[in-house]
């Protein structure tokens, strides 16, 4: 393995490692624009030029292969002066758009200017004019003047989404990013080009002019759009509610995970966050003969408990694969083990859809595998039998977690069956058809408002954390279960999801040995399982 020195620090790296990657391991900061570890090497920004002993010219660290005995210096005067001038070149035609550019605050030109520039401009010429505010497609806006032609977006559409919509036309400083006239940047991963654009050339239409990024706070979570469980960052604003009509979540960004989604997320996961702030059920509701009354938890839970008790075991529970491992475990414990209810069913929270050979899975639920490992299965026959019993008047009630079974189940006469019951309980975060009919509606938290774990389709258990307080009176499902259980005289001594997880681990083989701490930010290690679908590599803390 070649051993090289960077700024006096020695490191051994696998053959084929680029100097820029070796530097990163040493936590030496070499600035760059066009380099991206998930894309091919372009070497065109020239920002990463460093001094290599015995070589007369500076070399770009992103392309230069680390060789044994190589001595690299990243902070000599020559290197620093060159960096400054490269930055100057990139800014020669760059428009002074900071005041109106969404990228301000997370712009690599701003950042590197403060770190490596700090010179006075000496450009006395007109700048090259290019198209501004060009819609490239449904999700992305282009400002060609701001573009530094690093070609990251072009390489993305060629190598990652493999849709090749983007290209660079014209020669020299008239170069522009564009799509073929009449065509669009439209693919399931289009939003990623905005992430990787280091400047404000490609911006998100969804986020356009919404919020200045320095007002954003961030929390780590897992996308619940499908069974892959891409790692995400939820960026929200609480400081400037008057700017956003009270909306909290401003945007979703991908979070690097070597094994699950690398640097990318799909557009559905990226833009499907409005439900956290819109159409929420905010208060517990009681519905009698069509009239809706808002109650407090204090008032409604005894009534719900009364319904459950009087029904004895003549009711059904519909759990969903949108629930966390902890919630499914707790629900199973309460309804199946303690209350001895037979009719406990698992239904997919969302119907299946499109799948590709990259990130998107057909199963649009985050915890189907978790449910499976906890002993659940979707049993259509049993569900059918239960609904038939409901219609015959043999059942008294139904508890539904989240899913809109009135629309979701393949059964045709679900509504009729439900209306024959004495009571129905809907526990969910957003209004749907089910919440319009249920006699008791209990508001629950969305996944950014609670802690827990999901198990993705490969069997990887991943943690998600509470980022925001639940809206209104909403509570996480697990807490609803604990307090409901108390009303029924059953005492679960759980104050935190981690405690539920500990119990889960002791009881379910699949989760043996796991702890929240071990799950960390990357999820469980699935190398011991047969056929993981993305080749497992070293779990470096490798973020970019």
């Amino acid at each position, binding site marked *: 393995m070649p051993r090289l020195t960077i700024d006096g620090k020695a490191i051994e790296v696998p053959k084929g490692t680029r100097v820029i990657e070796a530097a990163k391991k040493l936590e030496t900061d070499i600035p760059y624009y066009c380099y991206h570890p998930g894309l091919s090497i372009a070497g065109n920004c020239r920002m990463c030029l460093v001094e290599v002993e015995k070589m007369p010219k500076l070399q770009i660290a992103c392309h230069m292969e680390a060789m044994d005995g190589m001595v690299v210096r990243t902070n000599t005067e020559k290197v620093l002066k060159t960096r400054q001038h490269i930055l100057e070149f990139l800014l020669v035609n760059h428009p002074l758009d900071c005041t109106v550019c969404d990228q301000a605050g997370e712009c690599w030109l701003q950042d590197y200017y403060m770190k490596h520039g700090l010179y006075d401009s000496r450009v006395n010429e007109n700048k090259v004019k290019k198209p501004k505010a060009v819609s490239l497609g449904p999700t992305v806006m282009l400002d060609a003047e701001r573009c530094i032609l690093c070609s990251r977006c072009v390489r993305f559409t060629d190598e990652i989404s493999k849709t090749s919509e983007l290209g660079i036309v014209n020669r020299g400083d008239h170069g522009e990013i564009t799509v*073929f006239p009449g065509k669009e940047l439209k693919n399931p991963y289009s939003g990623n080009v905005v992430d990787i654009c280091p400047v404000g050339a490609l911006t998100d239409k969804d986020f356009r002019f919404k919020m200045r990024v320095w007002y954003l706070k961030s929390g780590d979570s897992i996308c619940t759009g499908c069974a892959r469980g891409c790692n995400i960052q939820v960026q929200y604003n609480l400081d400037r509610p008057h700017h956003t009509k009270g909306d909290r979540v401003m945007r979703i960004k991908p979070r690097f995970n070597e094994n699950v989604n690398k640097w990318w997320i799909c557009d559905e996961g990226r833009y499907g966050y409005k439900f956290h702030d819109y159409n929420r059920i905010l208060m517990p509701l009681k519905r009698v003969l069509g009239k809706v009354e808002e109650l407090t938890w204090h008032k409604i839970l005894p009534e719900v408990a009364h319904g459950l008790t009087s029904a004895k075991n003549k009711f059904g529970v519909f759990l969903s694969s949108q629930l966390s491992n902890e919630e499914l475990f707790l629900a199973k414990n309460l309804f199946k083990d303690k209350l001895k209810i037979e009719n406990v069913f698992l239904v997919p929270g969302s119907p299946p859809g499109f799948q590709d050979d990259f990130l998107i899975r057909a199963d649009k639920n985050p915890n189907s595998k978790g449910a499976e490992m906890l002993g659940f299965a979707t049993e259509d026959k049993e569900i059918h039998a239960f609904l038939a019993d409901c219609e015959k008047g043999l059942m008294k009630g139904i508890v539904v977690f989240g899913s809109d079974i009135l629309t979701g189940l393949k059964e045709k006469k679900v509504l009729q069956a439900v209306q024959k019951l004495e009571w129905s309980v809907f526990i969910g975060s957003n209004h749907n058809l089910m919440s319009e009919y249920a006699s008791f509606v209990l508001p629950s938290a969305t996944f950014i408002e609670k802690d827990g774990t999901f198990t993705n389709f490969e069997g990887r258990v991943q943690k998600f954390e509470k980022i925001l307080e639940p809206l209104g009176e909403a509570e996480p499902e697990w807490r609803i279960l604990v307090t409901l259980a108390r009303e029924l005289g059953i005492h679960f001594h759980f104050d935190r999801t981690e405690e539920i997880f500990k119990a889960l681990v002791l009881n379910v083989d699949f989760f043996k040995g796991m702890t929240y701490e071990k799950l960390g930010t990357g999820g469980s290690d699935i190398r011991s399982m047969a056929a993981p679908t993305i080749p497992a590599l070293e779990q470096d803390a490798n973020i970019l």
Partner: protein
Amino acid sequence: MNTIFTPEIKIKADAIVAQYETRRASILEILRLLQEHYGHITLEMEEAAAHYLEIPAINVREVMTFYSLFYSEPKAKTRFQVCRTLTCALLGGEEMVKHLQEKLGIKPGEKTADGKFSIQTVECLGACEIAPMMQLNDKEYIGPLTKEKIDELLQATGCKPQART
């Protein structure tokens, strides 16, 4: 696409493509073929070429805009492509352009209103020994130019002198 790659064109195109290791590699010759046939290359033709070469359409657009010899708009019947690089600049190339400008009433990069003449200033054509020089209609090299020579050329190519304004 079949309307652009007519059977006649397709035979020629297939013969060209057969010479190269990849279909994409033949793009310059294929675009040239289309330009020779149709005069200039429209977006529709670019898409047809992309389809024929089995490459993304944007890659054809990139090539069209990168290289100087392709026309995206109808070209003038008589095109004066005057060199402006060092030797021609030293030997009065600028005056030749100005003379043409006066006579035709248009600036470099423009076409006369009747579409018959255009002036382009181009970079070194590899004919510095006959500077100042020009290329006519993307073909012949003509030089050394003088104002008289240009007037002769204009007459020969059917130019009616502009009324002095």
